[in-house]
Structures are given as C-alpha cells and as structure tokens.
C-alpha cells in the first residue's frame, strides 16, 4: 500500500498572514491544520479548483480516488471508525453530491465523524437548474449533523473549523460543506487558520449532574442483579479503560450492541455476549430479569430492544449518554447520567462498592452453555458437508487471534461475524449498524486500512452486498490497499431469504441472486484470490489470504439455506428469543 510519509513541517500558508490565497487552497490548508492526511474522493467540474489545488499538496495530503462517491464516503467512515479521527470525502456537485447521501445517513445514525466537501455551481447560478446543480443542502439536511453552503471564499477557514469541531465533538456525526465554484476560485487575504472550540448555540456535552451520578451509584450498590449494556459511546468517548474499571469493580455482567463490540475484549469474564435480534440467549432473556439495567453509550435501537412495551419493565434503568435527546427517547430512564462517559464513568466508579455477582453471572454462563449446545456447536461443527458462516469466522479467529479489524457488510454474514468474531482491541469492529447499508463493507474496509495501516483488515461480505460496490476493487488495485476480502457466498440474499422462510411461508421471492466468478473479477483488478468449496481447504485458504502480501479475495461457498439463530422475531419481546 502506498502510505504517505507525513511531512511534519507547518502548513504552508498558516502562518503567512495577509497572503492572498484561493478558496481552494484555504480548504486544503484547513484540512492540514486539522491533521487530516488522507482524503477520499472523486472529481468533477464543480470541484475542479479544489482538485487543481490538491495537485500541489501531494506531499501533505494523500487523496484516494474511489470508483463511486458512495465508496468515498464509506471509506471515510471506515477511516474514522478505526482511527478515531474525522474522515474526509470530496465530491462534485449534483450527482457526485447525491451519491454521498446513503453514506451521510449511515454516518449520522452510527455517529461517525465525517466531513464531506462538495463542489457547487457558481453562486450566480444557484436556483436556476444549472448543469449539475442540485440543492445539496436541502437534500442532506435530514442526514447531517450540520451543513453549510459557502458562496464566498473568505468564509472558508471559519466554516471548515466549525465543520471539524461539530463533526468530532459531543455525539459525533457527518457534516457537509457545499462550496460554490466561484468561492473555490476567489482569492482573498488569508489570515491563518483558527481551530474552533466554541459555538455559542452548541453544547456538545451536557452538564454532568453530580447528584444523578450519586443516585445511580446508590441504585447500583443496592442491586442484586445489575446488568450493563454498552454501545459505541464507550468507543467514541475513548472510555474503554474507564468502562472496564467500572464493571470490574462492580462485578456486573456486560453485554454489547453491535456498535459497542470490541470496546471490551470478547473473552473478558464479565463479557456476556451480544444483545439484540440475533444476539445471545442469556443477555436477551436476562434483560427482562435484571433489577438495574445500566445502559452506557447506547441508544436502545429497536433491533436491540425488540418490543418496547415488554422491554426490561421490571428494571430500574440508569442511562449514561452524551446526547440528552437519547434519554427517555425509547426507554424511560429512572436515573439519567448526562455526559461523556469518559467523565461520568470514573465518577460512578468512585462511588460504587466493590462487589461480585457470582450467582447472577452464573445465570449468563448457564444460558450460554445452553446456547452453545443448541446453536453454537452445530454452527461451528455442522453435520453436513456444507460449510457454515460461523465455522469460517471461527477458523479466522484461530489465525488472527482476535487482533484483526473486521469490517462487515449487511446480512446474515454480518450477524454471524458480529456473533462469533473475537476481538482483543477496541475500534476493531466496523459495521453499518443503524442504517444497515449493503455495499458498505468493501469501501469501508479500504478506509479502515488507511485509518489503521498497521493492522490486518478483513472485510466479510455477502454475495449480494459485494455486488453493490465491487467497483472499489479498482481503488484497491490503484492504491494498493491491502484489504483481505472474504465473500461468504450462499447464492442467496440470505437474510431476506431467512425472513421469507420464517415469516412468508418459504415464498422465496427474488432472493436467488446469481454471482459472477468473483475470483476472475478480482484477477481482472489485479487482486489475488481463490474460491473454496470444501471444508478441508478452508484453513489453508484463510492462511494464504492472511499471509498474502497485499489485497486478497477469498470466496467461501457456504450452506445455501442456513439461518442465523438465536433470533428475536420482530414484534416479540427479547425474552421470547428463539433458539431455532
């Protein structure tokens, strides 16, 4: 992979007050000042001045030319999720900008910090249906944390400073800046770049109410059967250590949402598994038995809660969240703990008693044993010759020892990967949780590799989802992103087929999807690969993939009609989770 030797010298213009520079140069100066070294994007007429300026910044800013703007923004998301930094994507006006919409919506719902910069037609043409003019601001308003249209170059430094501040602070999210072509060309007196750290009307973190922390501690200390559910807030807050200290002191079993996955190592004795529709048996059932439910940086998504009117009704709920709008939104909190969990967790830890909840923890373990017997063992060691998705993940675990970044697409393979992949490090699981965007994984994996260049990045993708953004193999080819791709091919749009089997009397309406010869396609893009059909070849193939120098595509033919279990059927309570 071509990596960028970072030039540590000061940005070229930042200190040169009263220099005349163009709006485009000001954009790039802002990126450098914000410590951005990799941007993803696709050029076009309305953003050409920025691309023109980029030509002179090659030593400071690495631009990855994707094959579709959707790929660009998913890559920026993948970058943000593994690096913890803001992902940046460029796109031109009109179709370029509208191609970002899916990714913006994805980043919005999964709280991913992204700054999207789009070109726009000349200001005097706005609103005239000019060539490639689209009302990008209005289209993206519902799917951005903030957006702004720049029509005058002098606004650029301050607006970009604001954009980065908003994207990364508080509950992170995507920001879109639309810049008219005249503003990109316009020269103005540049006075350096001032990062933003305050906006009058914006309060990224709510005021922590100490008394609520005390109240929460009281509830925890009195609890017989406390239960922690944790989400991505722990990772976004960089509070993995604080979180671990908290559960270890209190001895409380903890379960994760798919975005919280990897915040706590999988094998931690207090880690009791995955919540939600395809989560583990114990955490789902015992949600409806615990006496105090402590939700940390998670938002009670309906895929996690199942039927709300039957969700944890017996429990007192303590909800720690940075976004006040999340408190009481879906589940009523007995005690809200507003704030960044990086700050609130240590306050809470200081006030809780050291405890062990062995009998209670044992309940989780017993239920895990039951799940192991009824579900997991069969998944890991199928009786038939057909390979299961779970055994592929299991074999991968053996080889990576939980050290890889796993990027998943959307479908059965996603649920299986989230259930079985092991993690020893935070920021290792990249998936489209809230929006469930098929086509996410391949470009996100490219971004993830740039965000964590020293780590092994493995994308796990279905045969359906891969065909949504497979053109990004071209990006891999050109820039050498060493991404390992596993296609779990069941010759079906598996997840939809599973629902059709269970809820639509096996009426398999348009889920039988034909695939091309993926290995040949990869070869066409200069990416090595192979396809395995037989269990006995699996381990060796995975090993070859991981040891291969550079990108690699491994297609694994898996059982056509396997289902993901356990499952909380839609409209059911989490306690009604089905093991078959």
């Amino acid at each position: 992979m071509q990596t960028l030797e970072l030039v540590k010298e000061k940005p070229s213009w930042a200190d040169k007050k009263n220099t005349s520079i163009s709006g485009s140069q000001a954009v790039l100066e802002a990126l450098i000042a914000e410590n951005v070294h990799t941007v993803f994007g696709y050029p076009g007429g309305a953003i050409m001045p920025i691309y023109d300026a980029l030509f002179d910044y090659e030593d400071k800013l690495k631009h990855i030319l994707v094959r579709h703007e959707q790929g660009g923004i998913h890559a920026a998301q993948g970058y943000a999720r593994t690096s913890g930094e803001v992902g940046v994507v460029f796109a031109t006006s009109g179709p370029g900008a509208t191609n970002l919409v899916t990714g913006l919506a994805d980043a919005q719902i999964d709280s991913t910090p992204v700054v999207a910069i789009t070109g726009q037609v000349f200001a005097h043409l706005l609103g005239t249906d000019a060539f490639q003019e689209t009302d990008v601001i209005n289209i993206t308003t519902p799917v951005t944390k903030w957006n702004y249209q720049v029509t005058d170059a002098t606004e650029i430094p301050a607006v970009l400073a604001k954009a980065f501040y908003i994207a990364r602070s508080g509950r992170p999210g995507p920001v879109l800046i639309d810049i008219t072509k005249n503003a990109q060309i316009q020269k103005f007196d540049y006075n350096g770049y001032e990062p933003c750290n305050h906006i009058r009307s914006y309060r990224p973190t709510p005021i922590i109410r100490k008394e609520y922390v005390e109240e929460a501690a009281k509830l925890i200390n009195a609890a017989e059967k406390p239960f922690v559910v944790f989400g991505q807030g722990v990772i976004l807050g960089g509070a993995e250590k604080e979180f671990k200290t908290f559960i270890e002191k209190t001895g409380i079993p903890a379960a994760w949402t798919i975005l919280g996955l990897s915040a706590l190592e999988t094998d931690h004795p207090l880690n009791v598994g995955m919540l939600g529709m395809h989560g583990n048996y114990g955490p789902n059932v015992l949600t409806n038995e615990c006496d105090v439910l402590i939700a940390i940086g998670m938002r009670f998504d309906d895929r996690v809660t199942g039927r709300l009117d039957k969700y944890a009704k017996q429990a007192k709920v303590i909800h720690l969240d940075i976004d006040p709008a999340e408190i009481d939104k879906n589940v009523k909190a007995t005690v809200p703990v507003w704030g960044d969990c990086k700050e609130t967790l240590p306050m809470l830890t200081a006030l809780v008693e050291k405890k062990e909840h062995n009998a209670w923890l044992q309940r989780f373990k017993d239920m895990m044993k039951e799940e192991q017997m009824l579900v997991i063992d069969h998944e890991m060691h199928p009786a038939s010759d057909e390979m299961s998705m779970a055994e592929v993940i299991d074999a991968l675990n053996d080889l990576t020892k939980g050290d890889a970044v796993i990027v998943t697409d959307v479908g059965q393979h996603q649920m299986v990967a989230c259930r079985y992949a092991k993690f020893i490090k935070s920021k290792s699981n990249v998936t489209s949780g809230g929006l469930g965007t098929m086509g996410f994984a391949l470009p996100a994996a490219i971004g993830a590799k740039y965000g964590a260049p020293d780590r092994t990045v493995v994308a796990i993708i279905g045969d359906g989802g891969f065909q949504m953004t497979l053109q990004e193999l071209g990006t891999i080819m050109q820039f050498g992103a060493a991404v390992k791709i596993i296609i779990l091919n069941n010759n079906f749009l598996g997840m939809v087929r599973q629902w059709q089997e269970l809820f639509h009397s096996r009426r398999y309406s348009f889920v039988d999807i034909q695939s091309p010869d993926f290995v040949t396609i990869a070869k066409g893009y200069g990416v090595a690969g192979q396809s395995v059909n037989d269990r006995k070849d699996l381990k060796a193939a995975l090993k070859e993939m991981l040891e291969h120098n550079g990108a690699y595509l491994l297609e694994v033919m898996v059982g056509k009609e396997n289902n993901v279990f356990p499952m909380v059927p839609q409209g059911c309570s989490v306690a009604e989770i089905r093991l078959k």
Partner: protein
Amino acid sequence: MKQEYTITVYTENQIGLLNRIAIIFTRRKINIDSLNTSPSEVDSVHRFTIVINETEDVVRKLCRQIEKQVEVLKAYYNTNEEIVWQELAMYKVPTDVIAEKVKVERLLRQYGANAVVIRHDYTVFETSGHREEIDSLMKALEPYGLIEFVRSARVAIIKNSAGFHEKLKEFEAKDAGEKVIENVFLGKQEEVFTM
C-alpha cells in the same frame, strides 16, 4: 392526552435553520398548526413560536431534538395556561355594506377591531386575540360579504420567563457545560426533564 402546546425556540439567525426545524416535525408526521419566526429582544437571536397539538411526551422529545440542532440555543414548551398569546387577523369587506349596516359597526366594536384602510370599494379591519375570537368575527362578517380574510401565526410570551438575556450569558461563556455542578433539582425529575 393531546393538547395545544406552544414551543418557543431561541436560535442563531441562520439560513436553512427553518428547514432543519421543520424537518423534525414532518419526519414524525406532526402537523404544525402555526409557526412564527422573528427577531427576539436580544440582538442576533431569533425566536420561533410553533404551535402543535400533541401529547406532552411527544412535545418534550421534539424539544430535545430541536435543541440538538447546532444553531438552536434553547427550546421551551408551554401549555396555553402558561403563556400570553395573540394572533392578528385582517378582514376585507365591501365598504357600501359597512356604511349601510349599522350592525356591522356594533359588531366591530364588540370585537375591538380597527379599520386599517377605508376605500370607496372596500374596507380592511384588523383585530388581534385568541383564535376563537378571531374566528367568530370572521363568522360574523361572512354574511356581509367578507371578501378576504387572513390570520397571522401565533406569537406568545411565556408568563414566568425572565427573558433570554441571562441564559444567553451562559451560552456565551466559553466553558459552558464543562464543569460539574451540584444538582439542585434532585428528586424533581419532572421539572428537570421539562424544558
């Protein structure tokens, strides 16, 4: 129980914000009964007054979502008992009818309406008040050949608010939200939760 709520939102004066706020309602399929936006008593701070018919739970959540917008300083919601409110209406009627029918004159007095324009062909009256008052004058004028009628959005003053100046200082303070403060509202959860 659904009832009329008036939402008061203090914002920066920013293009596109109206849209951002409106989307919060349309996305949840909530109809806005009335919407007014104007400058406030504080320079550079705008004030939205939005009337909807909803349950308190929904209104509270809406206000949280509104406050989440970067350019929104604060969102309050109030019942009709908690505010002083007015709407303004104008009525255009044929002048000859007005001149001939004394009853109309009495009617106007009764409703405290004023003439804004008197021309030989028509006269425009205006009145302000609560919706029912405005509507009943319209009903009363209808038989006399009401040509045109228009009503403004609601404007409202919150009875027990001390203005926005103090709150604004808090917003302008650089370290807002950073320090830990003692909670004086413990045990008064309802009050803390209502904005």
